[in-house]
């Protein structure tokens, strides 16, 4: 799909309420194609909710969510499925399907949305697992993997359809610094290799510095700071400065 000049993802005045509480409050954000944006903020400030709006798992109470110029909240299920095939999402706890093997998890999107023969799908899934450092783990069940391995398998699944837009919800939370660094490098390598747009929700400031071309800071459902890591370091908002100084967070 031609996306010249159109942001890969754009949220326009998005509001989402749970009961009386506005989790997203008139939020607007445009992410140009090929950029890597890290979304920061305290827990419960609407970061994951924002990702779920972008991939159409939630609909805004007000405003619109555009992916490559198309409003995902107004789409038919068929069109939404088409748009989702251009996106990948890494969930906070990986969300691997626990009734099938790790390899079948990675092969699943290919099996559903490609006409490749079974053998080629398996080869691709094995290659994706190797890319995330899980070579030889194809036949293991998700329950047999550690937290870091599950997250890497989730990333492999998210990359299976070579997405133009990759959403990652706290990819390094709960991981040791080495594994966290590996995930960061994988995300950067993906962007460099494929030109994919990355939107990464994270609490991990070192990760955000490595991955993000731009950092967005959310508080109370609103963007309170936006810019490069250097700009946020110098922010005149004390909460943002404190957050950026918390290098060990994650």
């Amino acid at each position, binding site marked *: 799909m031609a996306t010249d000049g159109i942001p890969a993802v754009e949220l326009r005045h998005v509001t989402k309420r749970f009961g009386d509480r506005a989790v997203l409050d008139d939020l607007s954000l445009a992410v140009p194609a090929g950029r890597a944006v890290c979304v920061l903020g305290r827990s419960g400030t609407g970061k994951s909710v924002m990702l*779920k709006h972008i*991939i*159409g*798992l939630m609909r805004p109470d007000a405003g619109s969510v555009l992916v490559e110029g198309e409003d995902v909240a107004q789409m038919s*299920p068929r069109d*939404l*499925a*088409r748009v*989702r*095939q251009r*996106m*990948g*999402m890494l*969930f*906070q*706890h990986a*969300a*691997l*399907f*626990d*009734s099938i093997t790790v390899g079948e998890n990675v092969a*699943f*999107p290919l099996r*559903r*949305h490609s006409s490749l023969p079974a053998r080629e799908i398996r080869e691709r899934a094995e290659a994706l697992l190797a890319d995330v450092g899980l070579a030889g783990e194809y036949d293991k069940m998700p329950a047999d993997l550690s937290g870091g391995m599950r997250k890497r398998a989730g990333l492999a*699944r998210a990359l*299976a*359809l070579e997405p133009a837009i990759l959403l990652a919800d706290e990819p390094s939370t709960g991981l040791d610094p080495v594994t966290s660094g590996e995930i960061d490098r994988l995300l950067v390598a993906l962007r460099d290799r494929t030109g994919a747009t990355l939107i990464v929700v994270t609490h991990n400031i070192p990760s955000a510095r490595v991955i993000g071309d731009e950092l967005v800071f959310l508080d109370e459902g609103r963007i309170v700071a936006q810019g490069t890591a250097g700009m946020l370091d110098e922010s005149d908002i004390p909460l943002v400065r404190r957050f950026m100084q918390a290098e060990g967070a994650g």
Partner: protein
Amino acid sequence: MTVVVSWLEGVARAARFAGRVLAEAVRPPFEGRETLRHLYELGVRSVPLIAAAGFAVGVVLSMHTRSSMARFGAEALIPAGLAIVLIRETGPLVSGLLLSGRIGAGIGAELGAMKVTEQIDALEAVAVDSFRYLVVTRVVACVIALPLLTTLMNFTGLLGGWVAEALITGMPLGTYFRQAFQPIQFTDLVPATLKTTVFGFIIATVASYLGVHTTRGTEGVGLASTRSVVTSSILLIATNVLLVRLIQFVYP
């Protein structure tokens, strides 16, 4: 008042859910591979339970039938009496209740766990219609499995009845089954067996509804599983009354 309104809203949501299942079940594309997998998981894996339960029910029914018939000197009618009771009512109802326990609890817990671990969201994120993939396939599998499992229960029940009878009278198997099936007509067998398709629909739809609407983490998963069994069992018993009345109306 608020509780009543809230309850009615819940019933309306569940009814819409059931209506959507019916609509989507007949609309292609069909998830054949996944439906077959559930047919195996929910149906084939229930065979030992149904076969064993049917056999035991047959033995017990035969003992009761014998003691009742003996009062009237009508022991010769024992196989036929047992067959009518088993095929018309006991087999379908006991199968339904047993499977609402095994299948209902399983579906409620499985879908509940998938909901709280975001696996259902993950399915949607990879552009798969989770309702068709998770719910419709299970309901279709249950609708197909229930009559087949009920037939199995009827058969093993009769087998149990014969064993109980043979131990007392030494009646040969062939004679027993000939006497059992002699009075059985189409109207005894087919409507009673086919009504279990409705039981299958109720069990899988209720369990799926409660499973995909699970909240509150692992506690919610346990709750979804328990509620699936309780709700589907009550609905099944109530629906059975209506279906029996309907069958008697159509085939007086």
